[in-house]
């Protein structure tokens, strides 16, 4: 019997939700386990780095890597996996575009370390000790990974073959991707494995979206009783649907929550946040600067709102010093 194809799962700067998404395949996961040999999955199985390193290059059919890249350790691991895997799939919003961790690109490395190890409430560190990449203890040298200056997406560090979007990717698109990989029917390299349409296209509220939104106010979810049928943008909520890729079947709007943009943009868009501004803000009602500004004040954190999952992929990449 020929060997089953080998696959690897790995995590970088992530919350574990992407691992949960694999488990969310429910009974379908048995089909996956039946079809492949898992040779690395830190969250669930006891394989070490040396086990993977010992394998010949390109001997693993596919590596699914989730999480953003912040440390030298993560860089080292993903480079090693790139050598060992025939296909690398960037798994989830953090790997694709930095995700929530990339919001740290609004701050400088020094200010983050200072806050975490000195200033944050509850910190008791009179010596202002910080972890060092290299330190001596009883004659031994201890090393820790370097904390990089910024958060990167996976494809800013290694070459990526496919992308699975979402925070986390939904079971449906994960299964479709696994089946495509196993059958060898692969789309062109660089493809995002989710429909290339805007989320609004698959939203049940679409018919109630007016041609001209003419918004006079932005509201936050706790400020209104949300109508479960009507377009969320039309209700004044910041719904990222127009600038976000579909494929999740508009899960959040179906749950009466506005889309926050986790599937990233469609292939025609270079910058999700700027595209959202282009599409929605042209459609607010006022024409005078003062009145426009009053409407804009309803969004106190534009960067965190429009780039919630994608600041690494903003054309500017990070906040300047």
């Amino acid at each position: 019997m020929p060997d089953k194809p080998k696959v690897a799962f790995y995590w970088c700067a992530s919350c574990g939700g992407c691992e949960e998404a694999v488990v969310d395949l429910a009974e379908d996961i048995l089909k996956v386990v039946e079809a492949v040999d898992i040779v690395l999955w830190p969250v669930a199985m006891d394989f070490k780095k040396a086990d993977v390193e010992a394998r010949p290059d390109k001997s693993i059919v596919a590596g699914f890597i989730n999480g953003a890249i912040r440390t030298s350790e993560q860089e080292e691991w993903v480079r090693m996996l790139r050598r060992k895997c025939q296909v690398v799939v960037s798994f989830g919003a953090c790997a694709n575009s930095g995700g929530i961790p990339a919001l740290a690109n609004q701050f400088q490395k020094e200010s983050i370390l200072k806050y975490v190890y000195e200033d944050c409430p509850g910190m008791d560190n009179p010596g202002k000790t910080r972890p060092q990449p290299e330190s001596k203890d009883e004659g031994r040298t201890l090393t820790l990974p370097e904390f990089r200056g910024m958060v990167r997406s996976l494809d800013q560090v290694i070459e990526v073959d496919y992308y699975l979007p979402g925070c986390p990717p939904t079971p449906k698109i994960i299964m479709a991707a696994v089946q495509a990989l196993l059958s060898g029917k692969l789309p062109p390299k660089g493809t995002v494995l989710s429909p290339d349409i805007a989320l609004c296209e698959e939203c049940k509220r679409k018919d109630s979206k007016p041609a001209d939104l003419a918004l006079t106010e932005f509201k936050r979810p706790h400020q209104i009783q949300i109508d479960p049928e009507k377009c969320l943008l039309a209700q004044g909520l910041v719904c990222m649907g127009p600038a976000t890729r579909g494929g999740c079947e508009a899960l959040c709007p179906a749950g009466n929550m506005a889309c926050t943009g986790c599937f990233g943009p469609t292939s025609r868009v270079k910058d999700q946040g700027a595209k959202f501004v282009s599409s929605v803000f042209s459609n607010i009602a006022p024409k005078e600067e003062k009145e426009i500004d009053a409407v804009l004040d309803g969004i106190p954190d534009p960067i965190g709102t429009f780039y919630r999952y994608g600041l690494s992929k903003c054309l500017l990449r990070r906040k300047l010093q």
Partner: protein
Amino acid sequence: MNEQFEPKIVAFFCNWCTYTAADLAGVSRLKYAPNVSVIRVMCSGRVDPQFVLDAFARGADGVLLGGCHPGDCHYAEGNYKTLRRMRMLERMLKGMGIHDGRFRLEWISGAEGDKVKAVINDMTKKVRALGPLDLPGKFKEWDKEMEELEAHVNKDSKKGETTHAR
């Protein structure tokens, strides 16, 4: 050598007003700073905020956007859409640490050749004072931190050894 820094400014001018004004400035032989590269668009409303970010990311030190005065848009409402988008874009640029004077929106009618001259000269002066933005150079600088490890890992892979995080 004390050469003066010459900023690169990308200007998006609408076909019907500001571009016509730039043309008028030309035929009137008005002299203005040569730092501006003009891109003609049919309407200032055609300018997606993505274009502005892209211009900065590709090395522009400043971006100027010119359209018809409010009420004068050839397409009736295009410049209002521009105004609303760009008010938000300005907030985003601030959030990303791009200084106020690097992006500028101006209404310049087809008859205002002198205003083209005044705006370009003024913006060139102000951006020159701010100094180079040089995002392409910054991107390279930021990514340098990965180079050392790359060389290290490649060296290691030959020996079949690992560093930390075994």
